[in-house]
Structure formats: structure tokens, C-alpha cells
């Protein structure tokens, strides 16, 4: 374990990953409405699956709200469950 830690500093220099931020926190979007298809569709890639947090960078609280909104939108056919 220790040897891995010692190697880190050299590894970190090789690439720099931009820190992801939660879109909803940054833009101060308080309510994630299920009718806002434009906003929600940013978080459902082609297969119509909900984008995971580790990719989108959304914070856990907003991810939860986003999940609810997407599921409601799916129910009323604003968003697809799956694409062919």
C-alpha cells in the first residue's frame, strides 16, 4: 500500500482531470421539474438510461431529485424508457 502512495505524485502530473461540478448547484436550479424535457434529456444519453453520477458529476441530493423527475417524465411519455 505504502509503495502505491509514494508513486502517486508522479502519476498525478501525467494528466489533469477537470473537477466535475453539480449543474444544479452551480446554476441554482432548485426544482427539477418532470415537464422540463430539455433539461432532463441532458441526463439521459442515447440508450435512455439515467446518467450515473460519476459521469455527470451531479451531487447526490440533486441526483435523487433528477431520478424522480426522469421517472415521472417517463411515465407520461415525455421521455423514453429505452430506445430501440
Amino acid at each position: 500500500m505504502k509503495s502505491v502512495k509514494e508513486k502517486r505524485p508522479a502519476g498525478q502530473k501525467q494528466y489533469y482531470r477537470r473537477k466535475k461540478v453539480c449543474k444544479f448547484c452551480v446554476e441554482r436550479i432548485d426544482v427539477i421539474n418532470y415537464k422540463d424535457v430539455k433539461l432532463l434529456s441532458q441526463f439521459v444519453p442515447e440508450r435512455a438510461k439515467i446518467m450515473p453520477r460519476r459521469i455527470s458529476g451531479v451531487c447526490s441530493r440533486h441526483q435523487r431529485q433528477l431520478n424522480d423527475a426522469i421517472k415521472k417524465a417517463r411515465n407520461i411519455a415525455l421521455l423514453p424508457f429505452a430506445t430501440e
Partner: protein
Amino acid sequence: MRNYEIMFIVNPSVAEEEIDKIDTQIEGVVTSGGGAIEKIEKMGKRRLAYEIDKHREGYYVLFVIAANGDIVKECERRLRVMDPVIKYLTVRTDDEARRLEKIRNYRQKRAERRNTGAKAAPAQSIEEAMQ
């Protein structure tokens, strides 16, 4: 009384008057039960994200109402019975609205505190400087 949003999809091939008839019926259920209608929004024809009963398109209607559970139950029952209605969704909105208000209040308070804090700080430093 709670606030709800009822959204439903009507078969798009149905005549406009038919949709109006459904609207008035739902309106009647809500008002006669002691509820209030805040808004009726006809969102118009939209492509459905997936096929429902062979339909690819639908006419969306949104009701924003203040009512109790019994009224909502009755509305849903009516919608289920009506043939031109393809699908419906009821969402409760009042708890969400309350949460939003709380956030707004908190934010405002914090902004105020920051303003007063900014004013107080320089004054204090002047006093310190005089001492």
C-alpha cells in the same frame, strides 16, 4: 387541501370539442368536490417518447388544482374510464413548493447576514485602528 398536477394524454385523432368536453368534466369533478382549479394548460400535440396503444402522438393537457385526495381519486377514475384518454399522471406539488420556499428564505437570510456582516466589519477595523 393539497396542490396537485394532473397531466393526461388524449388520443390526437379525437376532435377538439371532445377534448374540451373531457376538460369540463374534470373541471366539474374538481369544483363540485370543493376543490379549486388554478390552471388548465393545453400543451398541444406532442410526439410520445414511446408507443402507447399503437399511438405515436398525443395531445397533452395539464391541470393544476388544489384539492383533497378524494377528488383526485375521482378524477383518476374518470380518466381511466374515458376512452380517448391514453394515459394520465398525478403529481403532488405542495410539499415541493414548501421546500422551495424554505430554500429561498434561507438564501435571502444568508444574503442579508452577509450584507450586514460586510458593513460591520470595516467599522470594527477602524475602531481597532483608532485604539
